[in-house]
């Protein structure tokens, strides 16, 4: 790791040589990362764009034959694509709302206590570090299983005679998956909010209290407005994460029952890797990318403007 430039006094000659090297030093330091970036991010992005104009297949080499915009037309007319997109958006709504509001509420409450905070933080954050495979095993076979699951057992104990089949009933499956996701990922948002709360200066609390504001009023009129930036960040990160949902749905319902929970990312895997239609799947990928980009940008600018106006 030692540099080739020696130590010692600088002669004019050496400093000129160093300057020339200096001009290359910046690009050289960035180069290793840039190489990975170009090979595994930029290149694939361009490939995806180009591949969409061909009817490529996993089974043969190369792009396949040129088909122009017909993949685009086919995807737009593909009812299954729209159905999976609808599932993806619905999942995003079902998860983002509780994952923002509940995380905010719990963080505000937790911020009032110092002793025992490690326990609260552990309880909410521990699920976040667990692999989705463990989460799926626990919920699919333990908590949400038919007949043997904890959730049905508790409901029966409460006097509900025929509790729903959480993952097997199309009316309940998406709600169950959303619930599991809230359990699994709330810790991340919770910690972001705790950090945001730390940044609120103490004297703001004190000033509000001096004015006679009770705890509830201080939360409503001081704390929540001051967390605006954090809320924007949490919401955008959450929307983007939820639009990319795959793991837990794939493992717990495999998109079922009857395809009622299949998200767009799984549709890409199914058309691209199971059916081997890489050109078609590329176009679906581009559309999903566009949706993610658009929704996060629109949300971002809306919030920016709202923040400026207030």
């Amino acid at each position, binding site marked *: 790791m030692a540099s080739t430039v020696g130590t010692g006094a600088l002669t004019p000659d050496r400093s000129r040589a160093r300057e020339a090297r200096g001009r290359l030093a910046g690009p050289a330091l960035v180069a290793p990362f840039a190489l990975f970036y170009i090979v595994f991010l930029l290149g694939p992005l361009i490939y995806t764009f180009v591949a969409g104009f061909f009817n490529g297949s996993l089974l043969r080499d190369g792009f396949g034959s040129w088909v122009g915009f017909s993949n685009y037309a086919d995807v737009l007319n593909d009812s299954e694509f729209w159905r999976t997109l609808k599932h993806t958006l619905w999942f995003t709504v079902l998860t983002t709302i509780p994952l923002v509001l509940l995380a905010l509420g719990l963080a505000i409450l937790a911020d009032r206590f110092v002793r025992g905070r490690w326990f609260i933080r552990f309880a909410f954050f*521990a699920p976040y570090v667990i692999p989705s495979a463990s989460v799926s095993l626990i919920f699919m076979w333990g908590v949400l299983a038919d007949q043997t699951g904890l959730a049905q057992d508790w409901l029966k104990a409460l006097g509900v005679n025929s509790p729903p089949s959480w993952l097997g009933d199309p009316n309940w499956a998406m709600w169950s998956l959303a619930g599991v996701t809230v*359990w699994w990922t709330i810790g991340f948002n919770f910690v972001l909010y705790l950090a945001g709360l730390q940044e609120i200066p103490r004297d703001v609390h004190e000033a509000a209290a001096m004015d006679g504001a009770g705890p509830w009023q201080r939360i409503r009129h001081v704390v929540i407005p001051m967390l605006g930036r954090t809320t924007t960040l949490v919401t955008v990160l959450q929307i983007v994460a939820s639009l990319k949902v795959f793991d837990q749905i794939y493992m717990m319902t495999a998109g079922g029952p009857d395809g009622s929970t299949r998200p767009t990312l799984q549709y890409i895997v199914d058309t691209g890797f199971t059916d081997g239609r890489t050109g078609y799947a590329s176009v679906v990928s581009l559309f999903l990318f566009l949706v993610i980009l658009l929704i996060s940008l629109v949300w971002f600018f809306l919030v920016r403007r709202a923040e400026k106006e207030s």
Partner: protein
Amino acid sequence: MAHTKEGPAATAAPARTEAAAPATRRGYDAEKLFNRVALGVLVAFALLWLVPLLFATAISIRPADEIAVDPASWFTSNPTFAAYEDLFDKGKLPYWYANSFIVSLLTTVLTVVTASLAAFGLSQVRFRFRRGVFLLLLAGIMIPMQVLMIPQFLALQEVGLLNTYWGVVLPQVPNVVAVFVFKQFFDGIPRELIEAARADGAGWLRTYWQIVMPVSRPAVSAVTIFVFVAVWNNFLWPLLVVTDPEMMTLPVGLNSVQDAFGIPYAQLMASAVLGAIPLLVVFALFQRRIVEGIAGTGLK
């Protein structure tokens, strides 16, 4: 656990609001009541959040015949580790642990080195198009890896890296957020420190390795933990790249356990627990660093 059982009176030290409590008797009572309710709600949610983990653990140590009689019960009179022993003896679990560890370690080292070098170049060295390069890299945050899996898969297939460690590792190395975290941190290092090293004749690499990296431990550990956890938990990418059971990472292996028909309930829960334990330990050890890391990546 014992901590919360002490009840509100013991735990409800209202640290942040204490000073803010108004002097009036009524205000003080409202504050106290609010704290009690807050603590109650918080502890109720925290316990609810722990139920699935505790339940899975409870099931995993119950003997099969007891489970058959009452599957949803928490209690057992003869706890047993039979399910765990079976998984280690008959399954491929040791392979999956080793694979996950190797893959996560390789990715983490490559990411930390390349991202910190790039961030150092972008933060401390003046060169043409520096800002342009930074913006281009930053734009990569917008690109979800998941929509690039088809070309990445085809490329790895082309060069014969399917079912290898490198096939899992390489596409996960370009982590734009890591560059961003390092650059934020490096920007805060006093310029005099860098200039002094440069004036002493240290080259850029030596400045990076001997001056910048040693003072950047918080950033290095935050990125290390984050990349490690993310790679350890990644499911979709290794699912596509690895089909050989002995090359699978833990999440993909666990999923194959679940697919195998007729696995006993206790073993399923034991696999879930075994999948969760390594990262729970990491989290317990580095709780503060992880929390600081999230706060740092997200907000500053």
